[in-house]
């Protein structure tokens, strides 16, 4: 199977502390792929490698057969960080305009793309407000709009629904499904089990290892459990399982 994103024997350490031990992942094109794991399991580090911010200490990452980091691929990635990285002094439109220029969206298209991205996340009425007046949920949506702005082939979202109310969460997932139908490959990190259920395929991360991989149903079947949470416990096995989850 030819895969869109491949990660081969990835190891990484920060100041001698090993955060990723031996990660192998293959993500096919057009999938909605979930990275599930508790905080500190190495999800964000993996994400930073995929978007080209971080070069692993060992191992190779390819996107579309091109080794990362590569500016060429970075142009095709839409990224939503875990914390909202926005300019609060500027209006929503100005934020979008700025990132549109960074991705070199042609001037003629910019206006249209901004209107489109804003309506996708329901922020059309608020485009000319400065972000200081935005609520946390609105800022989250704003970050998603920026990630969608340049019609990326890959969307990489780090905990996109943290701190977001259920209605909004549902609408964000719906939007992701729509994008997927249009052929976008989507990678989402989460530590919420019921969100993980919505992914086509999952990698369960724990302490820098991928402890299991497969579709949610596969994982439940293989572990002979009823829920992903129990599956996680099963694969995580070991001594800490009882203390960290219940």
């Amino acid at each position: 199977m030819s895969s869109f994103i491949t990660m081969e024997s990835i190891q990484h350490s920060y100041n001698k502390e090993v955060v990723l031990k031996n990660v192998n992942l293959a993500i096919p094109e057009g999938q909605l792929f979930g990275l599930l794991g508790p905080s500190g399991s190495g999800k964000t580090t993996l994400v930073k490698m995929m978007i080209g911010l971080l070069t692993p200490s060992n191992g190779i990452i390819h996107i579309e057969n091109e080794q990362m980091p590569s500016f060429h691929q970075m142009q095709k990635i839409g990224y939503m960080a875990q914390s909202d990285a926005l300019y609060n002094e500027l209006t929503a439109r100005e934020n979008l305009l700025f990132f549109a220029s960074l991705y070199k969206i042609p001037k003629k298209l910019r206006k249209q793309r901004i209107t489109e991205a804003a309506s996708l996340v329901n922020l059309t009425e608020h485009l000319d407000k400065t972000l200081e007046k935005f609520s946390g949920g609105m800022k989250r949506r704003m970050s998603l709009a920026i990630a969608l702005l340049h019609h990326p082939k890959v969307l990489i979202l780090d905990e996109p629904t943290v701190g977001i109310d259920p209605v909004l969460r549902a609408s964000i997932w719906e939007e992701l499904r729509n994008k997927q139908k249009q052929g976008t490959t989507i990678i989402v990190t989460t530590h919420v089990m019921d969100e993980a259920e919505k992914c086509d395929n999952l990698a369960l991360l724990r302490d820098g290892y991928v402890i299991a991989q497969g579709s949610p149903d596969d994982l439940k079947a293989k572990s002979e459990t009823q829920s992903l949470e129990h599956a996680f416990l099963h694969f995580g096995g070991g001594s800490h399982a009882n203390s960290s989850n219940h």
Partner: protein
Amino acid sequence: MRIQAIIKRIIRQFLRDKRSIALMMIAPLLVMTLLWLVLDIEDYTPAIAVTDIPEPMQGALEEQGATILEVDAHRAGTLLENDDADAYLSFENNQPELTMEGSKPTATSAVQNAVSSAVKQLNPNAPDLDVSFLHGSSDLNLFDNTGSVLIGFFVFFFVFIIGGVSFLRERTQGTLERLLATPLRRWEIVIGYLLGFGIFIIIQSIIIAAFSIYVLDIYMAGSFVSVLLMAFLLAMTALSLGTLLSAYAKNEFQMIQFIPIIIVPQVFFSGVFPIESVEWISAIGQIMPLTYGAEALKEIMIRGGGLAEVSGDIGVLIGFSAAFIILNIIALKRHRTL
């Protein structure tokens, strides 16, 4: 095009931050004005207590502008003690004796000047010395002398803080990482920052220089444009240094901690205090950007030098900026290796 986007964004952001604009544009004027009030003082009038001094001597002293208080020896002691007189002049057996109050250098030298001029005036045989000035004039006071250096200092200080903190905030609020997740090149960020703030720096330089020269009437022998150019170069050095050092600060507080370590020492070695006589101390100043900016500003404003005379300083400042810019581009590798 990406650089343009960064420049535009910085201008928009800065224009909405009224307080920072005030800090950059108005605070230096306020501080310069206060300094002017403190340093631009008229000649000090010394008060001299006297007992039984010859009539011509007293007349000569009064002509020199000293205030004469005729008292007895006992009263003179009290006057000196209470700081109501700066010196006490008495004649013991026709031998003049001068006692200084001594705690204020300005008063002491004013008394010395008055007395020695008076003595010279009374001695018709003393040669009349004609003093002329190659640079400056006899009324070049402390403000004129140090003001040129201080213009450089304030430009440096305020730009360092504002530039450094904004670049730091880019990191702490996560936008630097977000920027680096786009295909933006590392050098584009650094150059974009320099150009974006460069526009405000030019305005700031014009305001500070024009205010000092035309409103506070600081001594100015050279051309205004040359002063502007030096202020601008100095500010660019401060901006590139500030943005570079912000990489080594975790938060705004740690950025402020650079002030006593990086900024304040530069004042000591930049020519506000006379250090020319000790070579190894001057050598320390040679590694500090402000030294070169201050030297050039002094050359232009007091000696009336043109840009040719300060070309060495211009070269060094450009060199400092270039080095800081390159180091900053390298320092950004910590956030993205590519």
